[in-house]
Structure formats: structure tokens, C-alpha cells
């Protein structure tokens, strides 16, 4: 009986205390005809040793080669200390910190996380995390609708936003009677400013601005922010948190008056690049920060600093009246859990990297992507699709359909060559989204170039 501590003596004593004759008697309120028999499709148990061997084998099956796939999930170096500390039992197996006095570790850490995320995004307030980047965007849109409750229920989303984010956004807000308007991309791979200008003032609630966008291209965030504001809309930024170590934060976007711009209203994104391993897509975490004015519209948990009976500082969950366990059907969201363990990792990760460390990661990724793009475009028939530098990502066009090229790169050269854009963006032709982070060496880039040259030559 794995994980069950009872001895036969214990069971006998306990049943006797209860006054029950057997285990079955404990279930005597369940209508007998409903009781199920043996679970035929659950295999018999394995010992830990046996399951370890099974899992080692399956893990080895998926041993990856040299990966140049990004598209929203990035391979970064994660300091060993991050997960060695994060998986300490006291973080790993702790519950939500509702009993604050017994959860000061988690609570202080979340307060530190909130502080780091507001610093990074240039906003006033942060919650303690959402599920992932795409769902955080959906919550941001719903938050904007609540804050801007004038009945328009229309959100403007550019085509340069990650296609999967657009799909998730649709699925999560579909039932709430909100219209999604898509803005096209221009020839430079950026949101078409003219299309936004053409929208009537007062006709939409908010504009979503990705920076850098799905193609790795920098949007003209100041113009977009100003335009949206001039039309009475709120602005939601979707950002890569690592990029914010070097890019002007959303809190300063727009032309504004004093130094920085007036800034956006809400910032969200996926925290994966801050210490979460790729891990097949999750668990990651979404982050959500906003201007002070919207704090009571925020979904999710928020930690505040207060004092105890002796006046000593301590931390506790606050503004819980927004949440489902208090407000039920009138809550800001149905969200209950967050991604606490990932936030633990991210907070340690950010402490170890610091602003300068994150900036170096951003810089190495930026320059590595530029270098790879240049190297691949030396191959006859390969060309860059957009002129601007790519941050983490860049789009190249191949002289042949992408799928078979990727398959050949993977099988013959151990290179996972990128994300095939042809399904989501057929207008770009045989387009491939490539990604380089600080984990790749010049030799890795050369290996990719040589492999691609070989594959293309063989197929030509």
C-alpha cells in the first residue's frame, strides 16, 4: 500500500473506535448499485524503481538535439540554485498561504516577486501570478472591460500577436460577449498603424500591443499607445520579461509629458523565461501588473505588508474581497490557484541574475538571433522576411516548403530548426521562425547553417 502508513492493528483499532465493521461499512451511504468494481484500465502498481526505469526510458526517447525553436517558450540557462531551493519541501509541499503566520516564507517571497515585476514593467501593482501568458492576457482583457465599463466590449488585437495567444484569448472570453478586432501587419512585420488610425474613437475598449511581437520585431509602441489613448481606449502590453531589462518598460510607453511616456494600463506576459524550464509547455506562469487605479479590478492573489499584534512587520494576502472564495459569482475571476512554485523559481532566478544579468541574457539573445539570421541568409535562396532586428526570434523564408526541411534537419542533423509559420501566416510563404538565446555558441550557429545548407542542397 504505497504511501499509506496504517498497520493492520491501526486499522482494527480505528474501525473499532468508529464502530464500523469494515472498510465497506464506511461507504454505506453510497447506493450499493453505484459502487464500481475493479478499475480494469489502470495497470497494477509499479514500485518506484520500476517507474523510474520506465520514465528514464521515455525521457531518453525525447532527447533533444540543438533547438532553435522559440515561439513563446525560450531555452535559457537556469542557475542550479533556483530549482534546488524551489523544490525544498517547505516551498514545494506548502499550501496557499491563507494561514499567514505559518506562511511568512511564501508570503515574503511573493511580495518580493511583486516588487520585481512592477520594477521590470514600470507599473504600480502586480498580482502573485496567473496560469500562463496567454491566459494572463485574457484576464487582462476582462480586467480592462471591468475598468472601462461603458458597454463597448470590443478589443483590438494585432495579427502580430502570438497566434496561440489569440486562440486562447478567444476561447476564454468567447462567452462574455466581447468582440475581437484583428489589426493586420504591415510589410515590416509590425502592426499596421494606418489600420488602427482608421478605427473610430470610442469604438473599442482596449488595444493589445505585443513587444517584441511574435516575429521578434519591435512594434512602434509609442505611436500605438498614443493612438489608442487618443481614441479613448485602454492599452494592454504583452511583453517578454527578459526583454524589459533592456527595452523601455510599458509604464513609459507613449509620448507623455515628463521624461517617460504616460504608459500603458495593464502589462502581462509569460514568465517562463524567468527560470521555468521548457518542460513541454508548462508549468510556466503568467504575470500581470497594472496602474494603481486598477488594483481592485485585478484577478488573482495579492500579498501586502502589514504588522502583527506586536507591531512587527509581516506579510499577508490582501484585497481578498476581489476573489472567488469571498465574492463567489461576483468575483473578478474564477481563478483560485496561481503558479506559486514557478514564481518561487522566478524570484530566485531574478535575484541571481539581477538587472544586469537579465540585460546580458537579452543582449546575447538579440545578437545571437541577428548573427544566425545573417548566417542562414548566406545560403542561396534563404532570405530574411523583415528588415528590422529580431529579438529572440526572426523570420526567414526558405526556397522550399518548410515542413520537410525541418524534418530533415531534425533526423539527419539533430537540429530542431524553428517554428513553421506557413499554417498561421500563409501570406509569408515558406516562412520559418528561428530563435537564438544565450545558450547557443558560435559553433552551434555554424552547425545549423551547415545543416541547412546540406538539406536544402539535397532537396534542390
Amino acid at each position, binding site marked *: 500500500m504505497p504511501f499509506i502508513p496504517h498497520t493492520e492493528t491501526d486499522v482494527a483499532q480505528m474501525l473499532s473506535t468508529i464502530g464500523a465493521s469494515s472498510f465497506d461499512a464506511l461507504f454505506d451511504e453510497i447506493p450499493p448499485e453505484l459502487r464500481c468494481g475493479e478499475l480494469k484500465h489502470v495497470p497494477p502498481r509499479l514500485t518506484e524503481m520500476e517507474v523510474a526505469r520506465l520514465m528514464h526510458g521515455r525521457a531518453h526517447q525525447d532527447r533533444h538535439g540543438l533547438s532553435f525553436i522559440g515561439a513563446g517558450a525560450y531555452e535559457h540557462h537556469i542557475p542550479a540554485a533556483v530549482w534546488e531551493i524551489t523544490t525544498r519541501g517547505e516551498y514545494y509541499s506548502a499550501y496557499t498561504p491563507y494561514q499567514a503566520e505559518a506562511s511568512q516564507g511564501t508570503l515574503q517571497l511573493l511580495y*518580493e516577486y511583486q516588487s520585481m515585476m512592477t520594477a521590470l514593467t514600470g507599473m504600480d501593482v502586480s498580482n502573485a501570478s496567473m496560469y500562463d501568458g496567454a491566459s494572463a492576457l485574457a484576464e487582462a482583457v476582462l480586467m480592462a472591460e471591468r475598468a472601462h465599463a461603458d458597454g463597448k466590449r470590443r478589443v483590438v488585437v494585432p495579427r502580430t500577436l502570438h497566434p496561440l495567444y489569440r486562440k486562447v484569448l478567444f476561447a476564454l472570453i468567447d462567452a462574455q460577449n466581447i468582440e475581437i478586432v484583428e489589426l493586420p501587419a504591415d510589410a515590416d512585420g509590425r502592426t499596421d498603424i494606418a489600420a488602427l488610425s482608421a478605427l473610430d474613437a470610442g469604438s473599442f475598449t482596449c488595444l493589445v500591443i505585443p513587444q517584441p511581437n511574435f516575429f521578434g520585431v519591435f512594434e512602434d509602441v509609442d505611436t500605438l499607445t498614443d493612438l489608442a489613448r487618443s481614441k479613448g481606449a485602454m492599452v494592454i502590453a504583452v511583453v517578454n520579461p527578459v526583454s524589459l531589462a533592456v527595452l523601455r518598460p510599458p509604464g513609459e510607453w507613449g509620448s507623455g509629458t515628463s521624461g517617460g511616456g504616460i504608459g500603458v494600463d495593464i502589462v502581462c506576459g509569460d514568465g517562463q523565461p524567468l527560470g521555468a524550464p521548457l518542460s*513541454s509547455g508548462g508549468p510556466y506562469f503568467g504575470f500581470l501588473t497594472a496602474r494603481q487605479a486598477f488594483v481592485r479590478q485585478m484577478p488573482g492573489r495579492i500579498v501586502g505588508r502589514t504588522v502583527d499584534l506586536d507591531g512587527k512587520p509581516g506579510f499577508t494576502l490582501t484585497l481578498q474581497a476581489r476573489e472567488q472564495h469571498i465574492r463567489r459569482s461576483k468575483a473578478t475571476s474564477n481563478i483560485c490557484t496561481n503558479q506559486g512554485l514557478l514564481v518561487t523559481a522566478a524570484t530566485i532566478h531574478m535575484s541571481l541574475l*539581477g538587472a544586469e544579468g537579465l540585460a546580458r541574457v537579452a543582449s546575447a539573445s538579440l545578437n545571437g538571433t541577428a548573427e544566425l539570421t545573417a548566417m542562414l541568409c548566406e545560403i542561396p535562396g534563404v532570405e530574411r522576411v523583415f528588415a528590422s532586428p529580431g529579438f529572440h526570434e526572426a523570420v526567414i523564408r526558405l526556397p522550399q516548403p518548410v515542413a520537410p526541411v525541418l524534418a530533415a534537419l531534425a533526423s539527419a542533423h539533430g537540429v530542431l530548426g524553428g517554428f513553421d509559420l506557413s499554417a498561421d501566416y500563409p501570406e509569408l510563404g515558406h516562412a520559418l521562425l528561428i530563435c537564438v538565446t544565450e545558450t547557443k555558441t558560435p559553433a552551434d550557429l555554424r552547425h545549423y547553417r551547415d545543416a541547412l545548407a546540406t538539406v536544402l542542397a539535397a532537396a534542390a
Partner: protein
Amino acid sequence: MSEPLIFERSSPGRAAHAQRPAAAQQLSAIPESLRRKAAPAMPEVSELQAVRHYTRLSKRNFSIDTHFYPLGSCTMKYNPRACNTLAMLPEFLQRHPLAPMSHSQGFLACMYDLQEILKDVTGMAGVSLTPMAGAQGEFAGVAMIRAYHRARGDSARTEILVPDAAHGTNPATATMMGYTAREIPTDAEGDVDIEALRAAVGPQTAGIMLTNPSTLGVFERRIKQIAGIVHDAGGLLYYDGANLNAILGQVRPGDMGFDVIHMNLHKTFSTPHGGGGPGAGAVGVSQRLLPFMPIPIVGKDGDHFRWLDEADLPQSIGRLSTFMGNAGVLLRAYVYARMLGRDGMRRVAEYATLNANYLQARLRAQGFDLAFPGRRASHEFIVTLKRQKQQLDLTATDIAKRLLDYGFHAPTVYFPLLVPECLLIEPTETEDKATLDLFVDALVAIWAEAKRDIAYVKGAPYTMPVRRLDDVRAARQLDIRYQPAR
């Protein structure tokens, strides 16, 4: 001793050098206008400072690995360490979510197997693993109910029925899906008030959200009757899997008549709570909801596994996460399921129920009042301190805080809302009898303390890093981020 904020350990120019790329910033490729002017105010600390700070902070937490956590409705059981170790094998961690199928067969095999196991334990026809938490599983479930009615052209259904004892996520989810949540009262024995239910159903009923056993810690005995009433009215039944631990291998939601279920894998399948998440809220559906399941799902063609997506399920409610949900959590649940195996599933419910009924019997014998004294406990049960409140001003909060000094996490308090001064107690199957006995001793001792000196109990806790915190001040004088003195 208090632990300063990491920001207070920071000094300009300090760094954990081994963790940074060696090359300095080179940002000429970024247009000047887009560059950040001043570095964000992040901590600048050495590696030892960070390690020591976060190790010390961890020691200011209770956790399963250190304390008994009889938290009703949360199923805080042992999280086997192998689940963590095996889910964190380097190859699993390094696998990109968009890696080609040729580099994904090992991972997909695990996910496919997990789907099959969850189908069997719930008695459902299909399972999608993608929801990232219980609340997202609920969302997916109600979205499928909505999609089902829509697909049939039935647009009149605007209400979701919810028992008054339900988790807050139930009505909140109904609202998110555009439904009105309508509460159904509970009778004196803790069952759904059947007459009230009959009165409430109608052509406006999209469905009902139930957990069984309910949050009152008792099994809803007339579940088949309820299913009949709702189904006859054209509504669907939603099973909130929060309490699945109570019935694993004993009775299956599918057999009770439910059309859709979410499972909290971080409860029943023992993935870590992690201080608040990540969860995993897999959904299971009956035959008629199969076309609407959220994508992606793992399919099998011969020996080859692949993702099923929009092309395979054109009526799907869509994607709920960027990729495929909390994959690493699902791997942990899979390892756990394989270590339990067929018989282990059944034993989970047996021993969880044994522990709850034993604790209930012992506390009753010590004079505590049960909310439903005539009922069998499921995996959890409710003690009400109404009498102690009246006689001694001893509240559920007081007990909760004082228990911390005795080395026990508090039970869930003030939930369900309809029982006054309520302690919802769930011991789980992984706790031993000696621990349960010590917990009873602690409750008895605190009650005795309250009789002697209620003020002392109200001053608790005394042995935690802080004493009772001022929540009102926290909300009124909002301090939710570090701002350096300027």
C-alpha cells in the same frame, strides 16, 4: 529573527557572477528610442546571499513535508518525491512544447497513458489534460455544457444551479461563462434540498454543478434522483472533482450520471501545491460532450502518438493555455498514478475515509459538536464551534491560530459558509494514527486553555515568526511592493 527583504541585501554593483553571460550588453541593434533608460530596481546580490535568503525564508513556512495539514477540501497529502525527481529528468525539462513528434513520443506516451487512467477512475468517455487548474477545469466544463446546448440550437438556457455549500469557484465560473448562478439550499442532513431543486429546474437550466461528497463532508445519497431531475429538464451535470479523493476506486462520477468532471490533480493525484500552484485541472466527459473537449489531446495512431487539435475536433471549445497546460505537473500525476496502480486507487479512498471517520469519532467523544452528527464522514467532516463561541468566545480563527503553536496547520475555517464557526477537517490517507491522536489532543488542550484563559488563546500564535497579523491594515494601507527610501 526576522529576515530582511532581498532588496535590503542589495548593493549596487554586486552580482552572482557565475550566472551571467560573460559578454557585456551590446544593444546597438535596438533603436535608441526603445532602449531602457535606467535599469529596473532589481536586487543586486551574491549567489550566497540569494541562496541563504531563500533558504531562510523557506524555513518560515509550514508544509506537508514538515507538518500535518488537515485542510478540508484541499487534500494535502504526501507528495512523493519520485514524482518530482522523474518529472525533472533533464530530457523532460529540455523538451520544447513545439518539438516535432519525432522528439516527443516518450512524453506523449505518458500523457496518453494518463488520459486512459483518468478515464477509468472517473468512468468518463474522454479526458483532456490541458486545463491548468481546477478553476480552469471548471471553466472548460461549463464551456462544454454551453457549447453542447448551442450546438443543439438551444439558446434558452441561461442558468447554472449551484448548491449553497459549493466552492466559490463554481458560481464564479458560471458567471465567467455568461450564466446566472442560482443557489440551491441544502437540507438539515447536508443533502441537496430535492424539492427546491425541482422548483428551480426548467428550460432555462443549462446544468448543475455538484461535488459529491459535498463540501459538507457527506455523500449526496440521492445523486441518481438529482441526475434524473436535471437531465429530464434538459440540463447537464457537472462534477467538481475537488473531493474525488473520497471516492477513488469506489464510485465513479460517470456511473452517478455526471456528464462532465474536472479533476484537481494537485489534490487527488498528489502533485505539489507549491505554495499556491501550479495545479492541474484535467476534464473528463461523457460520450455526448466528446466533440467539445479543449485541445490539445493526445491521440494514438498505431504505435505513434500525436496531438489532436482543431482539425480533429472542429467543435472544441478551443485552447485554454498557450501550449498544452501544466505538462510537468501532469508528469508528476502520471508517476503517482503508476505507483498507486489499480488497487492503490481504491485504497486512497478507503484510508482517507477511515482517517476522517476516526478523527470524527474521536472528536465527538471528546465533546466537540459535529455539523452533521447523523452522517458518515467522507474524506472530511465538519466540526462547528458555535457552542464554544457562545460560551467562551472561542472562534474558529482562535483555534486555527493556536493550533499553529501546537505544530499543526489549521483546518479549513469558515467554509462552507453555511455552518457557523466551522472547521472543515480532511486528514488524507497518508497521515498515521499517532498524528491524528496528537491532533485530537491539541484540540482538546486548546479548548481547555480557552476555558482557563480565553485571552491567551486569542493572542495566539506565539511561536511563529510573527504573531497574529493585521489584515484590515493590510487592505487599507496597501503596501504591495518594495519602494526604496529616496
